[in-house]
């Protein structure tokens, strides 16, 4: 992406240098901003109580929200300082976001020994109590859950982000050059004046046409679709929850779109990996019984047991930190199953597992039918 008049929004990431912003740099920006946002305080307040413990004052304040909305400061029954924030505060984009104070720490000013405690109570109330009594000035630092947790997607972050290969030179600049050439030698090439201004305006408008053409082509496949992503999702019957980021929906649609009957296990592995990412450990097949498998002896037909497991594919996945992880369950029980259903032949059965000690119990309907 370049900057300036020839590069109107949206930004197009490309190799960096003097006038660009690369995809890698952009992703680092979004990641670090999200990381910092998770740990920096929500607000810092400097509060004061007079020596008679009759007046509480907010001396200074900074917060992540619209600072026209400050908390209120009052005194408790025992002279403690009570700072109260509202239930919702407006952010820099003008959106009201619900607020819940979760942590608070305090530092007390003074020259003599003092001990204090800080308490976070319901209703976004933070109470500072000290043993010193008398006049008190202190800094209170609070952390809070403010609206939804930050995600890189909020800033356009996307693990699949890459440098644009098509607009290495801005379309607007290419049009600008074309228009200059078309004007001929009768007109100057200075970057000022009315001729330049008209060339620039026209080149930006024509660049929008070039971009529209590219946008059309990008939306013809789900992997690079944005305006038609919801249509692709419905067409490909890819389930999605309201929490799913657009890049994840796009990736799942792309996997489904590219899915075809896999002619070999390596092809199957590649397509399953596209869906599972680093959760994918491998695929196992069962041509012969493997150690640890328990085969019902009554089904021994002589040269090995025939069972539907011979046409079984087992996908090994990495266990999540929490086995009740909703996202993991959705991934392996919904999206993976649907993908395998598309990729595997009708005579094949499949399942997923977290590899470890134990044995696999084959309970196939065919086996029971055999009974």
């Amino acid at each position, binding site marked *: *992406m370049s900057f300036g008049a020839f590069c*109107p*929004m*949206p*930004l*197009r*990431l490309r190799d960096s240098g003097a006038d660009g912003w690369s*995809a890698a740099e*952009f992703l680092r*920006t*979004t990641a670090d*901003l999200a990381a*910092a946002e998770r740990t920096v305080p*929500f*607000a*810092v*307040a*400097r509060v004061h109580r007079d020596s008679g413990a009759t007046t509480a004052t907010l001396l*200074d304040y*900074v*917060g*992540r929200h619209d600072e026209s909305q400050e908390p209120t400061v009052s005194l408790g029954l025992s002279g403690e300082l009570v700072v109260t924030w509202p239930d919702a505060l407006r*952010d*820099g*984009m003008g959106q009201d976001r619900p607020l819940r104070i979760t942590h608070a*720490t305090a*530092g*007390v*000013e*003074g*020259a*003599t*020994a*003092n001990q*204090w405690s800080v308490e976070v109570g319901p209703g976004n109330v933070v109470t500072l109590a000290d043993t010193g009594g008398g006049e008190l000035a202190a*800094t209170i630092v609070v952390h809070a859950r403010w609206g939804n947790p*930050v995600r890189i997607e*909020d*800033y*356009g972050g*996307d693990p*699949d*982000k*890459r*440098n*644009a*290969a098509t607009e290495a030179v801005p379309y607007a600049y290419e049009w600008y050059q074309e228009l200059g050439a078309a004007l001929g030698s009768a007109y100057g090439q200075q970057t000022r004046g009315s001729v330049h201004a008209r060339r620039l305006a026209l080149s*930006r*408008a024509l660049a*929008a046409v070039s*971009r*529209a053409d*590219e*946008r059309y082509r990008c939306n013809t496949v789900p992997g*690079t*679709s*944005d305006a038609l*992503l919801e249509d692709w999702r419905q067409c490909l019957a890819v389930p999605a929850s309201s929490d799913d980021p657009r*890049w994840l929906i*796009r990736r799942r649609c792309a996997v489904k779109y590219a899915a075809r009957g896999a002619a070999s296990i390596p092809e199957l592995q590649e397509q399953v990996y596209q869906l599972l990412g680093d959760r994918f450990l491998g695929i196992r097949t069962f041509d012969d019984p493997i150690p640890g498998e328990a085969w019902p002896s009554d089904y021994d037909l002589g040269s090995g047991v025939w069972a539907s497991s011979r046409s079984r594919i087992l996908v090994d996945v990495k266990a999540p930190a929490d086995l009740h992880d909703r996202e993991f369950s959705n991934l392996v029980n919904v999206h993976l199953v649907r993908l395998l259903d598309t990729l595997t032949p009708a005579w094949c059965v499949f399942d997923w597992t977290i590899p470890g000690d134990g044995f696999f119990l084959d309970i196939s309907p065919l086996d029971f039918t055999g009974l």
Partner: protein
Amino acid sequence: MTTPTGSPAWTRSAEATVYGGHQNKRDYQAQGVVNPQTDVSAAEFKRLCADLAAVVRVAPFAVVRLSCDDSTPAEPTVHAVFQQTGTTTTDYSGDNPPEGFPAVTRNGDGDVTIAWDADYKDDYGEIAPIAIRFAQASLLGSAAGSVVHEIVDDHTLRLRAFLADGSAAQDAEISIEVWA
């Protein structure tokens, strides 16, 4: 060389517009991203700018960990400084700070003064003064106690560490966050 807009982060004057997040920023001709895998929309960019401004407003200017040396007695040892202008995790004596890092002098048992420079440069050489507005300090270790702070002037802080019985904490190890 291009001069960055606005002022260094510790002036806490940044708004979203400083980062390019103008209120009326929009995709040209109201056309959305061309390729979501290579583009950043105006809405996403504005959100990034607004949140960055919010984070900059509340981020501490410096976080310092030091140990008093009252047994000798000698100047305190500073173990780590995370500052908006740079970081160090190499021990240094309070009276011999590396350039840009605070000096720490001993006043008495558990009593130290931390002094920063009056102004600092950001990564692009833009200079802005600091003015300490908030601070909080903690006594580290296994003994109960507390640390009170006193804002002496715009770039100087005095700390006093006490044990639970009110006596000065000898050889105290202190951690402090400062917003300037």
